[in-house]
């Protein structure tokens, strides 16, 4: 299968390791992976700020950049959700473009659910001796139904045990611009998330969305906690030796 990687702006800027982990996993699943150069962002910041015009312009750019691939895969539930669920809504009143958009949406996926549901991946060969907690990022969970797939693959990681996080499905308080528009409320939400993570006694916390991970890592570090924060793809791809956890220097 010819897969195009939707890098996401946060991965591109903050943590390319996640992009490379995604490529490694996709290739292990038998896909050929390309990275279209003309991609920048999915347009969610504009969309969620009510700027439909810019959201549409960026979406059209995505549409063109990702033409012709069997599948489009993003290591992020929120970006994949934007394309899969919200692009058709953005162009609902645009019959000229809508069919192309729906076609793109139908072949766009969040990474881990793509590996399990489409590629049929059942296990990985990675090893990581850790007790981990897993946070379910909201868009992936509620827009795309990503819940069992990461747990399934994590269960196959050698030496890894998963401590279920109470309130795993509760929002961490990132919400894109929300965390800077309403910092007090965001702080409360991420503090609650931190408290739940600490309660699991896990040595690491994982999730499938870098926005959540930056938020959670930032909070844990502010309080001096030594809990490792990584994207689930890094662990599944066995790349935990190559890059330090989020927010930790080399």
């Amino acid at each position, binding site marked *: 299968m010819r897969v195009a990687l939707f890098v996401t702006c946060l991965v591109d800027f903050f943590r390319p390791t996640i992009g490379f982990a995604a490529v490694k996993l996709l290739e292990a699943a038998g896909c050929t992976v390309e990275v279209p150069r003309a991609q920048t962002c999915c347009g969610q910041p504009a969309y969620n700020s*009510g700027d439909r015009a810019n959201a549409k312009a960026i979406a059209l750019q995505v549409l063109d950049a990702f033409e012709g691939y069997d599948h489009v895969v993003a290591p992020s539930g929120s970006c994949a959700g934007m394309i899969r669920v919200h692009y058709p809504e953005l162009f609902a009143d645009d019959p000229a473009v809508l069919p192309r958009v729906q076609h793109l949406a139908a072949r766009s996926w969040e990474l881990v659910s793509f590996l399990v549901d489409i590629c049929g991946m059942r296990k990985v060969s990675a090893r990581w001796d850790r007790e981990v907690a897993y946070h379910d990022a909201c868009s992936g969970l509620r827009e795309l139904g990503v819940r069992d797939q990461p747990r399934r693959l994590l269960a196959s990681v050698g030496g890894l045990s998963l401590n279920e996080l109470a309130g795993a499905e*509760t929002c961490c*308080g990132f919400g894109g611009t929300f965390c800077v528009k309403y910092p007090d*409320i965001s702080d409360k939400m991420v503090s609650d998330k931190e408290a739940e993570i600490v309660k699991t006694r896990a040595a690491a916390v994982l999730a499938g969305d870098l926005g959540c991970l930056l938020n959670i890592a930032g909070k844990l570090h502010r309080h001096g906690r030594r809990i490792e924060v990584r994207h689930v793809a890094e662990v599944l791809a066995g790349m935990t030796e190559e890059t330090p956890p989020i927010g930790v220097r080399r």
Partner: protein
Amino acid sequence: MLATSSTFEANARAGLANPILQRALALMQSGFPERRRLAIERLPEFEALRDIGESIKDHTLEHLDFYLELFEANVLASGGQVHWARTPDEARAVVLQICRSVDAKVVTKGKSMIAEEIGLNEYLEKNGIAAVETDLGEYIIQLRHEPPSHLIAPAIHLMKEQVADTFRAEHCSLDPARSLAEARQLCDEARAVLRPRFLAADVGITGANFLVAETGSSIIVTNEGNGDLTQTLPRVHIVMTSLEKLVPTLEDAATLLRLLARSATGQEFSAYTTMSTGPRRPGDLDGPEQYHVVLLDNGRSALLGGEFQDVLRCIRCSACMNHCPVYAAVGGHAYGWVYSGPMGAVLTPSLIGIAKAGHLPNASTFCGRCESVCPVKIPLPKMMRHWRERQFAEKLYPPVYRAGLSLWAWVARRPALYHATVELFSRALGWAGKDRGRFRSLPLANGWTAVRDMPAPEGRSFHRLWAERQKAGARR
């Protein structure tokens, strides 16, 4: 009711800093969601019923004029009266006129959000009529001169010590040495204090969870029995309600009732679900002599046929706010008006204007939990986004924010420039943060770094690294 929604940020901060409220909210979070989950587990058809509930409400809204007329005809046929009110003023005037017509001195009230919306209690008091709230939560906040903070549990923001303090202060004729340490004692005292007021009332005002067009009936759903005492004992029963409460048939009501209690409190059915149709019949030994329905519009008809129509499906269960992490952080009073939580974030701007209520649809991460628990599948985040679109179009956002967004979008539409910029900034920030791996503070990011560290980027952009790897691979 006076709105303080425009000071949402300050309200929220006050809520976050209030330890009693935070304890109360923690109790709520450990209560309602779990009970709802257990109730739904016992009903395998719940998901299917959500779809049906959604379609019943949609069908009714699409034909609302027909069902309103049918409802009215059936109310009249059963001996009741219907009053149509376009605005809060008209609704208040009708209620006053009915009260005056029977020389009413005391009015008891079952819980009615419509009555809150139009400020009915203050209006009646100003006109020399005592309005007594009888729902325990409403009674408590009436004594404290506070607005409700939740759709079904108006006093949820209080702990029992505060209720005890209020009762001591207000129930002056009782023995000051009495113990009020337990919720049981507080309930018993409220029951004893309110019983004579029920009996003395000239008029009883309730809300309506549903109006049934087929029979001209109103349905209230309570657990205390106060709504029933309110509507049965006085000479006059007034139903304060709004247009969108209609459902076509008794069977449709049964379907929605199966969704309501489970979604609200996790009960199989509320203790008292009562359907009223008209005044007492010849031969009845009790019941009101007059039955009035006040149908309020106040902006509902304007929501039909537009992008906010779906919020009119709301059956007032409160599941959305019970599951909302923002509500759980700041409490209901932060929203500043009658309706709080996610449904309040959508409905309030439509009733008091987006200029005043602008914060409400913005104070959301769009986590989507509200929509996932709504018994009638209202797409709440989508409608909050529609409000944001209105604000954007009407330039209601701060100029700095708009400028930042425009600049970012301008660059994002130019991939080559974007990639160069990302590479530049990730190198710069990666270099600046390489010693610690994160920043304790960062210019322009104070909202973030005030309370958390900012992880440093790895120092190269993915696109550049990928391009380099491709070139290296091609050379091999």
